Every structure is written in C-alpha cells, then in structure tokens.
C-alpha cells in the first residue's frame, strides 16, 4: 500500500514512451493522485486527442504502481482543463534539449487560418545553439513535434510545438 507521496515518487520514474528522457509527471500529464479504498486513483490528461501513446501511458502507470506494491490502481482520463505544453517542467525542457528536441517556446498557434508563411520564428538548434534554422515541416514524427534543420551544423532536429 502506497501513500500519495510515495505514489508520486513512483510516477516520477515512469518515462514517456515516445520521449523516454522525461517522465510522465515532468510532461505534466499526471494531474492528481488519490489514495482511495486501499488503492490508488490517478487522473491523467491526454496530450493530443489522437496521441497513440495515451493507452501505453495508462498501462505503464498501472504497472509501475502495482510493481511498487499497490493492489488496485484506477487510471482516469480527464479532458478538462486541456493539456498545454506550459505544463512541461523547466528541468524537463532542458532534458528535451539535451536529447536533441527543441523545447516548446512562445505561444501556441493562434488565430484563424492566416498563413504563417515559410519564415516562422527562429529557433535555437538544440545541438549547436545556432538560430540559423529553418522549418522543414509543421508535423514531425509525432503530431506534437515539428521538423527543423540547422543551417549551421546541418543537423535536422525536432521541435516540441507549443499547444
């Protein structure tokens, strides 16, 4: 049987399945943990509506808490308030950068359908720090990331889009 504090400690070590350098708590998707009726009730919010990792994440959370000694784990998915990249912790943003993914910066896409042209905000390359970078595609390997290229070190990199 785990206390809420112990449960949080366990969850701090559960990695995001697609970006394993950060944990599900650093990603900001674990919203609440309650000890209840001898078990645990965990509230999780999805990142993107269609994120294929959502079910894997719920299972990882369940497995980790059961392995740590909890008999009953209920994982509830809650939509509101909607997840935002602003909930990614500051240390996690540094881990993203070290992993080669530019962390989210600035504001999310706003307004209606105004074309943003092909000169979006200059991002710093997570490898060499140069801001001489160009966007290759608004969608990278997952919906949450865009694909960029550094003109200075010539390496491609991904950008975790603000949402």
């Amino acid at each position, binding site marked *: 049987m785990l206390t809420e504090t112990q449960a949080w400690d366990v969850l701090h070590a559960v990695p995001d399945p697609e970006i394993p350098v950060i944990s599900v708590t650093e990603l900001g998707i674990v919203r609440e943990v309650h000890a209840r009726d001898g078990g645990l009730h965990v509230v999780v919010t999805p990142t993107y*509506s269609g994120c294929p990792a959502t079910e894997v994440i719920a299972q990882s959370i369940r497995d980790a808490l059961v392995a740590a000694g909890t008999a009953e784990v209920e994982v509830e998915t809650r*939509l509101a308030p909607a997840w935002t990249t602003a909930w990614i912790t500051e240390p996690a943003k540094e881990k993203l950068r070290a992993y080669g993914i530019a962390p989210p910066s600035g504001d999310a896409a706003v307004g209606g359908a105004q074309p943003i042209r092909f000169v979006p905000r200059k991002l710093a390359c997570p490898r060499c720090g140069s801001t001489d970078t160009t966007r290759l595609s608004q969608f990278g390997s997952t919906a949450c990331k865009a694909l960029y290229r550094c003109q200075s070190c010539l390496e491609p990199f991904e950008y975790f889009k603000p949402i």
Partner: protein
Amino acid sequence: MTTTPAHIEYVTRLGDNALILGQRMSEWCGHAPVLEEDMALANMSLDLIGQARMLLTHAGKLEGKGRDEDQLAFLRTEMHYRNLTLCELPNVDFGRTMVRNFLFASLQVLLWERLLASSDTELAAIAAKSLKEARYHAQHAGDWVVRLGDGTAESHARTQAALDYLWPYTAEFFAANPTDEAIAAAGIGPAWSELEAAWEAVVVPVLNEATLTVPARTPFKSYGKFGRHSEHLGHLLSEMQYLQRTYPGAQW
C-alpha cells in the same frame, strides 16, 4: 441537462466529420508527394480520429443505449452517418486535399472556439482540446493553399479546379434544420447564420492571397449532415468497416 434527440444528433455529426475526414486523409499514408507531408497528413488524421473517439463516446453516452465509439464507428451504415459531404469526397490530388483541409479546418477553429462556451460541459472540454489541434491544421493547409495557388501554372490550375469543385459543398456547413435550431436554443452550439460571415472573413483573404478566384454561390446543396450522402461514403465505409463486419466483435 436533459438529453434530447437533437443533442445526440449534433454530437454525432461532429464525431462523424472528424472520423470520416480522418479516415479519408489517412489514405495518403505512404502516398503523399513528399515524406514530410506523408507524416503531416497521418498526424492530422490521428488528431481527427482521436477527436472522433471522444465525440462518439460522448454521443453514445448521451444516447444511453450502451453503444460505444467502436459500435458507432463500425456498425452504422451510410444513412446513419451525419458527416458533412465535403469530408467524404475522394482526395483526388494533393491540391484538392489541401483546399478541403483549409475550408474544413477554418470552420472547425471557429466552431471549437464557440463550443468552449457550450452548455454541454463534456463537449466544451472536447472543444478545448480540439481547438488547439485545429489551429495547426488550418495553418498547415492555409500555407499550402497559398503556396499552391500562387505557385506554378500547373499548381494554380489544379488548386483553382479544386476550389471550384469543393466550394459548392461548403454551403452545407451553414444549412440548418430543426436540430440546429434546437441546439442553438439550448446553448449547446452556435447558430450557423452567425458562423457563416465569420468563416468567409477568414477564408476569403487567404484564397485571394493565393490568387484564386472565389466561386459564386450556386443553388446546389449537399446534405450529408442530414444523412443524405454522396456515392463516395459507402465505398469509404466498406473499407473502414471491413474487419468489424467480417469478424463481428473482434478485439485485439
């Protein structure tokens, strides 16, 4: 709040729009002109199918007959689908796909913004998530419409042809029947008459920038959202529902 047939119908329409366009767009997977667009289209399809799951789950709960998202997606026939006809039309080429995405995503951005204040709190929560995604979809498609329309003679001609073909189907966005009137009266969703001018104010400047000619309105109207579909939906469903109809109740 009491559930009304109009309420179920309205949420089903929103779910069907997302599901059918998500399915249609996913046909590009492995076929898009460049790898980056292949990934972009697949990711946007996933966003839409994710939205459809939330919306159809909600519609099933409102209905209260024990139907879940899978039963609603895989065990209904054409006449029970309530998506806009625009969503089911074939992709044809990249230009028509981008123009369709632009016209539809621009509507979705405006609609989700208004649904944030829906008297249906579950729908409002789905709107808050979907809005963020729709903004990226609208930006992506808007970029391409400008790039293609104001591009080469070939890309311009194809994009103009796409707009000429698709434009008449957008009249359906704003068509209203008693369902729509009940929804507006109950504060569940906005009145379409209010949305039409807002949509044109967003869409037309981008089309102008793309050097495209906005077609005149014609008397033609499609009515997929009222359950009267084009011949294309049946073919789409026969592929999408194949597994569930061949092996009813299959799970994995």
